[in-house]
């Protein structure tokens, strides 16, 4: 019995040693957030399946809320969106990728940022510092059609030392599902 266990252990060890030293494949690096689609917009094929693809560069009559401010001189919808499969994006080489792997698409041009994102220097991660993490997708912070980070309304100004007792109650705000408490600036 003991001998059998020993043999099994050796076999397992040998197999482990013989496994090729594969660098982490890009496909399994991360758990990411879900792409932030406008509600009801996805799947795109729900509308586009019934429409003949029009590859001509033009003023759109639908999707008018999209203001392309992302190297718009050289770029057009179908440079990233796929004309044949509307529910996918495509890379420069034509490979189709799903929307939740869009970082691969962004990384084609923004190589330095993509490299930083993979190591955690760029972008946001939530979860556990020594465990499971969820990475934000590029498009969570940068609208792909107009990627500049948008200004935000700041939280209340901290009280000056003489005013720390003049706080008129608190109120809560929800940010990304987290409830935080701030001084109530409107209270009299």
């Amino acid at each position: 019995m003991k001998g059998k266990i020993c043999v099994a252990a050796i076999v397992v060890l040998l197999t482990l040693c013989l496994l090729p030293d594969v660098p982490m494949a890009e496909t399994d690096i991360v758990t990411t957030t879900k792409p932030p689609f406008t509600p009801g917009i996805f799947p795109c094929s729900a509308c586009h399946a019934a429409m003949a693809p029009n590859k001509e560069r033009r003023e759109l009559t639908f999707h008018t809320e999209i203001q392309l401010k992302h190297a718009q001189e050289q770029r057009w919808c179908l440079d990233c969106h796929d004309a044949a499969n509307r529910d996918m994006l495509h890379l420069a080489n034509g490979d189709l990728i799903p929307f939740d792997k869009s970082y691969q698409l962004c990384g084609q041009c923004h190589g330095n940022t993509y490299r930083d994102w993979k190591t955690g220097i760029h972008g946001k991660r939530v979860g556990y510092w020594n465990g499971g993490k969820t990475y934000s997708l590029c498009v969570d912070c940068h609208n792909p059609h107009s990627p500049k980070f948008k200004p935000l309304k700041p939280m209340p100004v901290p009280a000056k030392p003489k005013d720390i007792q003049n706080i008129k109650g608190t109120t809560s705000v929800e940010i990304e599902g987290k409830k935080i408490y701030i001084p109530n600036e409107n209270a009299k």
Partner: protein
Amino acid sequence: MKRRDFMRSAALTIGGLLMPANKSDASMWETFFQKYFREMTPQEKKGVAKRLEKEYEAKTGVKINVKTNEALPGVKYGYGLDLSRCIGCRRCVYACATENNLSRKPQMHYITVLEFKNGEKWISDLEESQKYYKHEMVPAPEHFYMPVQCQQCDNPPCVKVCPTKATWKEPDGIVVVDYNWCIGCRYCMAACPYGARKFNWGEPTVPPEQFNPDTHYLGNRPKFKGHVEKCTFCIQRTRENPGRYPACVEICPAGARKFGNLLDPNSEISQCIEKKRVFRLKEELNTHPNFLYFFSM
């Protein structure tokens, strides 16, 4: 009766009479005779936590869990802040106050976000910075921001000056305060070159429904008047396996805050140090912070 026995019993009697007899329940005696935290056995620490939990429940009506777990082996916490990304929105300030049960009135914050004008004096002279900036939207044009909080120094001047050894550096790099041991002399506040230590000038208040019940003895447990406190890298969150990111990291909308184990070469913070030009605030003071700033672009 021997002279020595007389003196001993006299001292005990006087000592006993000096105790406020009207409040002399068991808990009060235990508080009075509480040992130094670093000399307690894990069992004794648990006992103290139990007593505090009972006290807090009686006082606030909320069931609060007080943890006393020790540093994780092989871990030294480091923090990175990307000044190219920070937009000065102050979400970290209030996420921190919420997580750490900081007094709402009088107001206390661990994080101070400083605003600087592009091209003006900044790192050599923080006097020019603006803490009370008020804008409709941030980042304000031609301005940049630098949040400052406890730098968890390896050579902490605050620890050196404490006359009661109520503050010390833990093996995982966090500088902690035992609020029960602090006498409120504020020497540490004078010694800290980063203005990171905060004093409870009045009785701190947190509305009961806003209490975060997950607390640590050395971290966010309910506070009282007359002692110093500071950022602990959210010890109640981070000193777990798996441990969550500090609240300020989790809330930052710009992803400017990085946190991890300096001893793990693949952690975000180690990668920042390896790949970016990081710097320490007021490096010339030889405090050796574990809080690093960098510009990613």
